[in-house]
């Protein structure tokens, strides 16, 4: 009996040590996606595969997400002629299954566990400063079922933990949008500018969304709702701050000054850690949400820090870092509890969209 207990304990401990973390990262200037595995100490590129259809055109894979059941991953290709594309891949084979056209420069996306629908912002990064849209896609048959007009340069599509609301920010109009994930309508929008902060003119939107546009000073690039509290955090890329929004009252409750150019921001599934990439300084900040004074900024292994994927057990944050010119992109692993850089691996050029897939033996 003692032998059996010992053997069981050995198996449990052994399996704990052999846990592997899998994730996908897109390389925007290489038209590549890498499948990465982290074994708790070393991050390894398991496989790298080409995406897109035109070898001599850079199609720019930008956003990537894995569906809640882990069977498929989805990739947005920013550049088309002119519309971008969303492609569905099997996680089993990493082969494309089907595609659908979206809007201009489709970027970040996520699937709602409540509706099963995919919500992808059409960033229209290089277009005119006019309201763009959030595309809603039925990923089962890959049909874009609606484009919901929001603000100028929408980015950072994230879904509330109950799956009922989609949040995004409009980078150039400086707004936070809340979309009802079922009615597919904008429910609320919030001006994120500080008082008198807009660069010029008024900032008004009428019923049909025609807008007198002025450039945001906050330039929000990301929003993440808290997994268990009615709070969301917004990355103020232009104002170098993280903005806390009270979702009950729909007001800004706090502005936290951070380093240069916060770009993506995520919260660990256990709600304990806030992680933000500081694009302008090539570093990543980590905050303990229970005590914001407990924080640390870690230098990334190259410049232009971009995306964040946090493991489902809230232990590790995986950071994509673009690099410059011909440099390879990087993915850095951060141990969240101890707030230190644990490993790093080279991937394709301009590593951006990153998505956690699974923990597996």
């Amino acid at each position: 009996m003692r032998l059996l207990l010992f053997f069981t304990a050995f198996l449990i401990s052994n399996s704990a040590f052999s846990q592997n973390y899998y994730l996908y990262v897109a390389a925007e200037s290489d038209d590549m996606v890498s499948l990465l595995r982290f074994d708790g100490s070393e991050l390894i590129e398991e496989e790298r595969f080409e995406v897109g259809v035109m070898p001599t055109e850079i199609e720019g894979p930008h956003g990537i997400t894995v569906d809640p059941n882990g069977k498929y991953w989805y990739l947005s290709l920013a550049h088309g002629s002119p519309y971008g594309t969303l492609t569905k891949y099997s996680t089993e084979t990493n082969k494309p299954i089907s595609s659908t056209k979206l809007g201009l420069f489709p970027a970040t996306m996520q699937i709602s566990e409540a509706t099963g629908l995919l919500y992808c912002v059409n960033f229209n990064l290089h277009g005119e400063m006019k309201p763009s849209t959030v595309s809603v896609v039925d990923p089962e048959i890959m049909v874009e079922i609606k484009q919901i007009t929001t603000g100028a340069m929408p980015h950072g599509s994230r879904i509330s933990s109950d799956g009922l609301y989609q949040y995004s920010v409009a980078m150039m109009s400086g707004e936070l949008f809340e979309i009802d994930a079922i009615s597919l309508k904008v429910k609320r929008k919030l001006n994120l500018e500080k008082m008198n902060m807009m660069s010029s003119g008024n900032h008004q939107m009428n019923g049909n969304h025609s807008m007198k546009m002025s450039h945001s000073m906050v330039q929000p690039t990301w929003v993440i709702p808290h997994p268990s509290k009615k709070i969301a955090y917004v990355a103020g890329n232009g104002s170098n701050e993280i903005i806390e929004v009270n979702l009950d009252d729909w007001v800004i409750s706090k502005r936290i000054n951070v380093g240069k150019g916060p770009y993506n921001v995520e919260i660990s599934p256990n709600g304990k850690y806030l992680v933000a990439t500081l694009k302008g300084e090539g570093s990543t900040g980590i905050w303990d949400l229970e005590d914001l004074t407990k924080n640390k900024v870690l230098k990334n292994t190259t410049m232009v820090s971009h995306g964040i994927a946090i493991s489902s057990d809230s232990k590790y944050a995986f950071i994509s870092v673009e690099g410059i010119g011909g440099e390879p992109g990087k993915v850095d692993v951060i141990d969240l509890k101890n707030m230190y850089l644990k490993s790093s691996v080279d991937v394709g050029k301009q590593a951006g969209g990153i998505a956690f897939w699974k923990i597996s033996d």
Partner: protein
Amino acid sequence: MKNYILQILFLTISLTGFSQTKTIESDLMDLKMNVGDTFTPSSYVMSSDGSTTSCDNMIYYNKQGVFSTAKSIQVDNESGKIIANQPGLHEVVAVCITEGGKRFSRTFVVDVQFPAVKEIKISLDSDKVYEGTYIPISYEVIDEMGFVRENVNFSIKSSNSNLVVDDVNNIKAVKSGNVTLNATYEGITGTLNLDVLKNPVEYIELSSNADQARTGDVIQLKAEAYNKKGQVLSNIPFEFSFKGKSFDKSNTASGLIMNDGRFVADVSGNYLVTASLGNVSVSKALNIYERNVKRDVVKVGTGLVNDKHTSDFWVFEGVDGRDYAVTGTWGADGTSYFWDVTDPSNILKIDSVQVDARTVNDVKVSEDGKIAIISREGASNRKNGIIIIDVTNPRDVKIISEYTKNLTGGVHNLFIYQDHVYALSAGQKYYILNIEDPVNPIEVGMFELGKEGQAIHDVWIEDGIAYSSNWRDGVYMVDVGNGIAGGSPSNPVAFGNYNYASGAHHATYPFKSKSTGKFYTVLGDEIFPNGIDVNAPNETAGFLHFVDFTDVDNPVEIARYELPGHGSHNYWIEDDILYVAMYSGGVRVVDISGDLMGDLYKQGREIGYILPGDKDGYIPFATMSWGAQLYKGHVFYSDWNSGIGAAKVMPVKPDNSKVNQYLN
């Protein structure tokens, strides 16, 4: 044991209960609507045991998606209200979302019925109908709401035996006299009264501008009909046809003959061309010989780039009178290379610049050899734009300025012409910059199609006309200083357009034929049928479309150059010779002299080719030719995997084979 069986039974029952299937039931089932109708569905969920529940969260949508092609019906996502805009069968999806994210969906076919047919128009595509000929007829079916019905299967009947209608509705006039043709569909009949004329032709004389020719030469046939009195008959709708026998017994004679009497043969052999009207015909024999334009094309020199992909290039004469080239790089580190190509057999890399980009897709040099412009994609600050470079000393080039305004989406292609830069913006439009002061470029104009979903791939300027290649919208000819339409760089005015079905229009080269004086635009496809592999050879497709633009208002596509198994990329035309980079097919040199008609490759017009793939290339031995340029007698080219190179088309060798002894 008994307990065990009971447990199994219980488990089975419970599992059955849990696996009970649910479906959406809706009055969308078998729904028929008329154009203009609205319908709001009522839907519910039915379990396999027959119980029903309502669905609190139902989403409806048109399965065609949200693009303009899907506006045939509009579906409100929340209420499911449908507005029927166009007739046809449409699919509406209903998705029920239940608690916990479980969802089930069902697709319903909605039949928006065609309005009743109101009118059938029949028209005759010929002035006269003669006994013994097939009748060219056009039909148009218009319904009560003005929609034109496509692919209608008529019932066609003749009022008497003067016409015979076969099973697939071909109509032949067999006897002279009056007759009425009736085309009936859905109870509506359109009629056409015809007078079938007795065939007045007693005999036909057929002549041609040549009795023997080479493959690819367009022969003009002339048919003249005469009556019994030997008088010439005018306006006779001759039917031209041909048959032939190849000299090569294992080959098939082939060619193309048009209703205006032009004939071209692809293969050498004996041909018989025929002109006929009804049962009167005459034939004429033509001997067609090999075009015999083959020449050796030899590689002269290479400037190898094998640590990154090479993109476009430009060869130019420097201010010092020597010859230079600039090449871009693709998916790399933003480097452009400068080369001394004065001796094409000894191409020397002499300088480089590196800018913040991953791809320098295009490079061009000003007419005076002083300014180079390079495009940027993948800049780390995402501002991209263009870089202007002083190349007065190509051994020590210097960046003059960077220009990014309105070009942040990446510049894929650009052109320089008379102190102006034409730079593509985010693949949607092009901006025109005045660079008289290259330190301070000034935006002076912009051209876009102004269409939803507008897209552009390239722009090329010649004689004050900008030729933009706009994918599915084809070529646009824009006056930017020529004067033909009153345009200028600050006021670009479009005056010509041609597009074609594949929608893959990628590059344009204007071409005035020296031998015929005709003006063409040569439009190139870019197609990758099987997607990509950047580390292995790729399959490419597509071809060059030759469009006769002599009449700008009525362009006519008249010929193609299609290399089987290889797709087209960039090209150059000089002295009626085409130099074309055919990606995996290498650099091809093609004789495009004389009238052009049909399939130029099949006609043996290819003079020669080289495959630049190099054993030391980025991908060893893999040819992926990007562009070609004839410069001072050498064919320069860039290749994705091997850099820049030069080739020479060798002189014609003396022909001792006597194959062409019958030709002048």
